[in-house]
């Protein structure tokens, strides 16, 4: 009881104050970053000009928030992280450690995530769940799909940007990764067009930070919507674990001693969780593609 009521150590309180001040400063820098503002402006424009209602294919419009909030957020976070590198000889001798500064940088992801949540709500208002374009998925599963396509990429992108900024010196790394992920998502979707029944192909489609779940058939009746295999809920879990991996990898830079071993242990646990989530995402959901 006495221990519970004992005041916190003054060093811990000072550390928390310094962290809060750092996080607030990084958040302000991120909020005025032109790349982030450009992405935010683009997604606002797309949502404002969206007429709403039923559309032939939901996947044709649901990916834009991921590109503009997640992709552009990643580039902004990468440049924000790298911008501190030249001043490292000065900041490196301050009492705040590199992992603490990295953690403060990671908190900036709250802003694009909040924007992603707002975009999700706006999107659902324009295209309410239950419409034909969402396919045969249940209403909760439709919300899970939209969350995984709109809100979570807005969180994961900036976190990946911080991790890249901490570990990669190449100044164009964020661009390369953005284009690579864009290409990868397109690439792993292609086999599902021709082998929608295959479990390994579904697993490959899920092995990505973003995935499509429905398809409007190119041949046959274009009014049909095919709901692909794969569990939206477990895919959401896989995405959140990828976010955790990005944070841990970013924190690993500059960590030493006990903290380093703790981060590595956490990384191993999280990696095991990622494998489980990916397997469940690939094997869960419908047993076969369902046409509606």
């Amino acid at each position, binding site marked *: 009881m006495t221990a519970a009521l004992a005041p916190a150590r003054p060093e811990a309180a000072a550390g928390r104050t310094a962290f809060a001040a750092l996080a607030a400063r990084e958040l302000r820098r991120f909020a005025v970053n032109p*790349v982030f503002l*450009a992405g935010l402006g*683009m997604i606002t424009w*797309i949502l404002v*000009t969206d007429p709403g209602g039923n559309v032939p294919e939901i996947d044709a*419009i649901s990916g*834009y928030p991921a*590109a*503009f909030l997640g992709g552009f957020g990643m*580039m902004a976070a990468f440049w924000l992280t790298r911008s501190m590198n030249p001043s490292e000889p000065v900041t490196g001798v301050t009492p705040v450690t590199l992992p603490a500064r990295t953690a403060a940088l990671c908190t900036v992801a709250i802003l694009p995530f909040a924007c992603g949540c707002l975009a999700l709500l706006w999107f659902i208002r324009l295209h309410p769940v239950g419409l034909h374009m969402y396919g045969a998925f249940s209403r909760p599963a439709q919300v899970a799909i939209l969350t995984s396509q709109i809100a979570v990429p807005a969180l994961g992108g900036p976190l990946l940007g911080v991790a890249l900024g901490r570990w990669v010196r*190449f*100044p*164009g790394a964020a*661009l*390369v990764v*953005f*284009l*690579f992920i*864009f*290409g990868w998502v*397109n*690439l792993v*979707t*292609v086999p599902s*067009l*021709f082998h929608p029944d295959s479990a390994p192909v579904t697993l490959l489609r899920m092995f990505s930070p973003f995935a499509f779940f429905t398809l409007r058939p190119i041949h046959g009746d274009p009014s049909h919507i095919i709901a692909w295999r794969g569990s939206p809920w477990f895919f959401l879990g896989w995405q959140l674990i990828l976010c955790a991996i990005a944070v841990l990898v970013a924190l690993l830079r500059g960590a030493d001693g006990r903290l380093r071993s703790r981060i590595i242990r956490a990384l191993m646990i999280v990696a095991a969780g990622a494998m489980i989530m990916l397997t469940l995402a690939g094997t869960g959901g419908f047993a076969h593609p369902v046409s509606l």
Partner: protein
Amino acid sequence: MAGPMLRAGAWPAVVLLSCVAAVVGGFGAAFPAAITLFPVGFALLAAAAAFTLDEPASMVVDVTPTGPVRRTAIRALALLAPLAAGALVLLAAGLRGLALPWPATGLALAGNVLLGFTVACVARTRTGEPGAAASGAVVLVLMAPILVPPVAGWIRTFPASGGGLSSDAVWWTVLAVCVVAIAISISGRSLPRWMPSVP
């Protein structure tokens, strides 16, 4: 002079981006359904071209008797890397039997690479290492027709079916503007005062 100038170039960045572009474009050739990978690969080649003028020792190099015209001409040799990677992708697509409009695709490849180089030329008048900022700007512009739905209806940067200004018209215009911009930027004139310097 040409040897040291070329050796000092940002070869890791140029070669890395060209290789990634070749891989991305190669997948586009291997999987014709993923045709979007071609413009993505070309945008990466433009980013590679934007790194060719990076000069970490610009404070020293810029005051040597070798003028910007000669320096730029020597560094332009590095454009062979992205052009070769692009040619490799087109060759792979040809071998796979893809029915692309080859002259228009070749023009788009040359246009992408020249656009990246031009933005780097213009930015080089203000900074020694324009690669990061120039490649970012170029990629965002080139990806706009893919990322922004209304832009895809106005212009096309890759020859494909659809509405809007044809890619040939876009790239011939871009090529003409690029030639003028390069000529102005290497003639020793700096950017207008209202244009901010690249950090």
